[in-house]
């Protein structure tokens, strides 16, 4: 069943992708193929493989239960927050928080998670910013100090 849904989505993607290619302006003095032909070919290959999945799906994989899915959503949210807030919070604070939450979600005790968070943020900062001279954002701490 999973393969069928996936196949249907991919078929939709193939259609949208090819439909979009229709509008590309070949310009004048262009090569005989122009910017649309290669996308058409790709759309066709994707469509064929997607139709195969619709007709001959493999067995569905074992999807994780809701509790674990929730955990994964949380982790993805934390990673997105890290990406968005890295510059404002600064590397050390953002990393400390993120590693602590990730560690907790992966089954560490609060103490281990916090210690890992402190350790990772300081060691990686030392390694990158100081040793390798790749500047990391200093953020909040930089503004305070």
């Amino acid at each position, binding site marked *: 069943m*999973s*393969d069928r849904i996936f196949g249907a989505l*991919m078929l939709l993607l193939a259609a949208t*992708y090819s439909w*979009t*290619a229709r509008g*590309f*302006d*070949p*310009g004048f003095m*262009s*090569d*005989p*193929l*122009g*910017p649309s*032909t*290669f*996308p058409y070919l*790709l759309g066709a*290959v*994707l469509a064929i*493989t*997607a139709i*195969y*999945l619709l007709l001959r799906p*493999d067995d569905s*994989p074992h*999807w*994780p239960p809701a509790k*674990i899915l929730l955990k*994964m959503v949380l*982790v*993805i949210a934390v*990673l*997105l927050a*890290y*990406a*968005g807030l*890295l*510059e404002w919070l600064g590397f050390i604070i953002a*990393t400390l928080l*993120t*590693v602590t939450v*990730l*560690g907790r*979600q*992966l*089954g*560490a005790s609060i103490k*281990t*998670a916090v210690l*890992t*968070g402190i350790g*990772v943020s300081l060691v*990686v900062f030392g390694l*990158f910013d100081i040793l*390798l001279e*790749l500047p*990391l954002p200093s953020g909040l701490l930089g503004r305070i100090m």
Partner: protein
Amino acid sequence: METLGYLMQGFEVALNPLNLGLALLGAFLGTIIGALPGLGPSNGVAILIPLAFSLRLPPATALIMLTSVYYGAMYGGRISSILLNIPGDEPALMTTLDGYPMAKQGKAGEALAISAVSSFVGGLIATFGLLLFAPLLAKFALFFGPAEYFVLFVLAFTTIGGISSKNQFKSLLAASIGLMISTIGLDPATGEPRYTLNQMELFEGVNFLVAIVGLFAISEILFFLEDSHAGTTVKVTVNKFKLKWKELFALTWTTLRSSVIGFVAGVLPGAGASLGSFLSYTIEKRLVDHDGTFGTGDPRGVAAPEAGNNAAAGGALVPMLTLGVPGSGTTAVLLAMLMSMNITPGPLLFQQHPDVVWGLIAALFIGNFMLLILNLPLVGFFAKLLMVPSHVLMPIVAIVGLIGIYSISHSAFDLFVMIAFGVGGWLLRKLDVPLVPIILGILLGQLMEDNLRRALNISNGDWTVLWRSPLCIGLWVMAITGLVLPFFLGKFFRVKQRETEGDVPD
């Protein structure tokens, strides 16, 4: 002989103290990455590419370091295969067959030492093979025109799934997704924006490093979340071992035969290291297993696949360097590494960047020696790394991955895209859709389209140009064979592989 002269120049590059130091560091880091649970060679190299890029290392230096990581990771992966019966990547599967029984008999030290020595021999022989065959193939490839290149890329995509591919349609589907991603951005020929959704950030296209780190590293974290068993730390010990020279010499022929088989398997398109270790184990079993000891802890059963897969890893560099067409996941990642330094592998590489090619080949020789020197005394230390719990390891992987990408562009947008790739990668892996064709598609897409358009430009829009030359026809035949063969052979290989325990990702 001109090759020898080039090689000497290569050694000059590789033996400069900085490069030598980075080769040692790379081999060390690589072994750690390989030994850590859940980080295969592809993941390890993928996470480190952005760093090599941001540090603005000269191409030859970066290449030397990252190939040492690759070699190191291959070796490190053996530690968990032998001690825990958990292969770190697919090629390591065959090593578990005799390695784990040896470990259970209290001979883990011997098994690891045999693996180190036979890997060394396999790698060394493959490097000699690379030295001999790569320049020949590069000369031959100079006859390739745009049409030939286009068909060559088709060949790469139809064979990347490998001989044991479960579902060729899924591998093709993955390839087309990858190629589609490569079309995002301004069309280089006309300047027309394609699939950019009017986002400025997408005008330059999706950075393949962002895609690779997301697909490999972030999806790996999600997999760990899925089956994280808190508190299941493993205890591993390695016995003090005494390896007698006589025992090693008894393995000479097994190792040599397996190295040659592995090298040939590695050069073939789409075969790679998995086939190398599989073939060398099976053939060796046929040849020397008179008492039925293979599978019960026979040292030859460790030496054969280890020599085989390391030789295959070297062999896989031949098509990667000369044609720009990688045959396996890790060589695809190595290709990404070259391209991140603005070096496009292919026949011209040997003319335009001889320092890179020959420096690399010399580095392979040196890396091999370093690994042997590093591994025999330090194996106990590396084995301890198996005990690093995933709740410490995975956050580190996440942070190093994110920071690596951040240091390239300093853009939050790239990080969001990377996380999106991670989620997508997890979904696709759950659905058994291989990720390597996607990477390959992103890497080769522009070249593929460019060659197609140039071929058709020369022929004035006549499509028959794609199958006019004998070379093209030959490539088409290989491509179609590669596409169809797994339908017949796949079942056979999978049954053989399933004889071992465990489910292997990647």
